[in-house]
Each structure stands twice: as structure tokens, then as C-alpha cells.
């Protein structure tokens, strides 16, 4: 997704030797995309900041394992997705409020006001109100351009599940934004 730009390979090489200044360059280049993903998956800016930090700390500790088969940004995104998923399963959880009750009915939810004011809020709000699984897939697929196969690997689910969740996300998003189906 995010091709290695000028200097990135060199920064990675230097960071592997323990050069934190080089790693800071990598951080500066990728932090917004990592934070954007974490924020959209969690809807919680504080949690997203924590998870973004976790992502970069994990990446630093594991730089020797980065083989360059995918882009560095994609590798970071995989780590970030795992950090988000692990935080949801962790004992303390992140306190994310389910948007549906036990019977699958939608609960009322206020928009995440902390999102950047420059972002088209209606669409972001609509995405934020989606159920967790549907939201994850829509964000990864729609915003970040991953394939179903890539999403399935990241999320630890079947490809068919990703496709079903995407279909669900599109349907719910249309309903919530009062759009006519374009299919």
C-alpha cells in the first residue's frame, strides 16, 4: 500500500542497528496511517494513541524479522491490527461499547467528536456506528485498500467472512446514511 519512499530502506537498515533517529524517521512517515487505522478500529482516540505506540514499539523490537516481502507500512498495519484485536481480547479490554445489543439491534451512539474536523464527518460517523466486525473490514478494505485475502490474514478470519462482513457494512452504512443502493 505505502511504497517505500526515499530513504526508507536506509532508515530501516539503520534502525536495525539500533539507530533511534532513523526509526523516528520511519515513525514520522507512518504514524498518521497507523493512528488512523487504530482510531477507526477503536473509535477511541486515547486507546488509538496507546495502540499506535504499542505498534511502533513492537515494530522496533521486531525489526530483524521484517523481511521486506511487504511494504513497511503494510507490516506496521498488520502489527497495529493485531494490537487492536489483542486489546479487545485482553482482560481489561478497552471498554468499547457494542453498537448492537444481544439481539443485534442497533444502539444509539454519538459520533466520535475527536476525529479530525477536516474529515468528512458524515461518512466517518457512519463508519463509526458500524458493528465491530463490519467496521474493521470496511476500514481495511475501503480506506486502506487491502484485499479480502489480506484482511482475512490480518483479522484471523476466513475470506468468506470478510466478504460477508463487507456486504453487511455496505448495507448498514447505506441505511444509516440514507443512501439508495447503487448495486
Amino acid at each position, binding site marked *: *500500500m505505502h511504497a517505500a519512499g526515499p530513504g526508507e530502506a536506509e532508515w530501516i537498515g539503520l534502525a*536495525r*542497528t*539500533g539507530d*533511534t533517529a532513523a*526509526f*523516528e524517521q520511519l*515513525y514520522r512517515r507512518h*504514524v*498518521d*496511517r497507523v*493512528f*488512523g*487505522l487504530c*482510531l477507526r478500529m477503536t473509535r477511541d*482516540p486515547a486507546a488509538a*494513541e496507546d495502540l*499506535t*505506540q504499542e505498534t511502533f*514499539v*513492537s*515494530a*522496533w*523490537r*521486531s*525489526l*530483524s*524479522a521484517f523481511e521486506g516481502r*511487504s*511494504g513497511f507500512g*503494510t507490516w506496521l498495519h498488520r502489527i497495529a*491490527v*493485531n*494490537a487492536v*484485536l*489483542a486489546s479487545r*481480547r*485482553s*482482560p*481489561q479490554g478497552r471498554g468499547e461499547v457494542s453498537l448492537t445489543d444481544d439481539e443485534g439491534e442497533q444502539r444509539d451512539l454519538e459520533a466520535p467528536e475527536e476525529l*479530525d474536523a477536516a*474529515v*468528512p464527518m458524515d*461518512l*466517518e460517523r457512519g463508519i463509526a456506528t458500524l458493528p465491530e466486525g463490519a467496521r474493521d473490514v*470496511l476500514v481495511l478494505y*475501503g*480506506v486502506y*485498500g487491502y*484485499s479480502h*485475502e*489480506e484482511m482475512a490474514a*490480518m483479522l*484471523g478470519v476466513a475470506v468468506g467472512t470478510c466478504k460477508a462482513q463487507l456486504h453487511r457494512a*455496505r448495507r448498514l*452504512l447505506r441505511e444509516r*446514511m440514507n*443512501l439508495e443502493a*447503487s*448495486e
Partner: protein
Amino acid sequence: MSTIRFGRDERERDELLGRVADLPAGIAPSRDLWPGIRARIEVGAPAENAAPHGLSWRWALAAAVAVASLSVLFTWLAMRGPGATHGSVPVAATQPVPAAAVQPVSYENYARLGPQYAETRAQMLTLFRARLATLSPETRQRVEQDLATIQKAASDIDAALAKDPSSALLNNLLVSTYQDEMRLYTRVTAPI
């Protein structure tokens, strides 16, 4: 990165997906996160934190599976075995070793344990140590072996995560060790 044709076509023909794709991928955090990251990574260079050569996540998997069975089964059996004693036994009468000698599991680099979990675990640990002190040496030894097994699994998984931090399986296994540890405390402190 490869993007399959199906996905690209779908994004192109669906107006709503097209609008989603136009959203900015990057959102700037409200503060600079780098100082916090730097403070944590300056503890050691990447190579210093890498997993020991040859360590496979499969070993972590095997260890974690062992934990799941050991910590539940052994403790359960031990607490109900003939060597077990009950909560009414005075601590001083059966337990000469200080309870503080029993340490909780240390999760090292990849743990994501928040303050709420830490507080709950500390409370459970207090009860666990008190209860442990009332058990027979044999039962207590089994419990401590379970705790050591969980510690080994947590350390192995942590080391494996250093090589593959994006592994969903390893992250799940790490979470399972949190649960195993708490399950062990619960088993030991539960009324018989």
C-alpha cells in the same frame, strides 16, 4: 501489495465504497507520540530484544496448549486430592515459606495489561497467596509448577512475538496466558 481484481472492481463500481476510499488514510494524533515510544525503545536495540535464534512460535504454541490443560486439570485435581487441605487450616500451621516468595507471571515486552487488570490481579494474588499457604506441600508444589508453566509459556510467546509481532495466533496465545493465570488463581481461591 497485491489487490485482487474483484476488490478493485468493487471499489470502482460502488459509489459508497468510492467515497470511503477517498477518506484520508492518515489522521494525525493529537500529540506527538514519539517521546513515549523513544523512552521505551531506548531500553535496548532491536537486536538485543530479538528472540533467541531458532526459537519457533510452534514451541510457544505447544507450551500454551500445555498451559491450558495443566493449569486447569492439575490444579483442579490437586485441590481435590487427598493431600489437599482446606481453608480452615491456619496458615502458620502448614506453610513455613513466606507467601511473598510466590511471584505472579511476568509478561515482559508484548503484554498489554492495563491498570485495571493489574489491580484485579494484585487482589487475586493476595487471596491466592493466602490460600496457597494453607495447602499441603504436595498440592502447593503442583500449583507452583502450574504457575511456572504459565510463566514459561508467556516467556516463549513473548520471544516468538519478537520474531513475528503480527501473528494473530501468538497474540491470541499471549492473551490465553493471562486467562490461564487468572484461572489458576480462581481455582486455588475458590471454596471447595
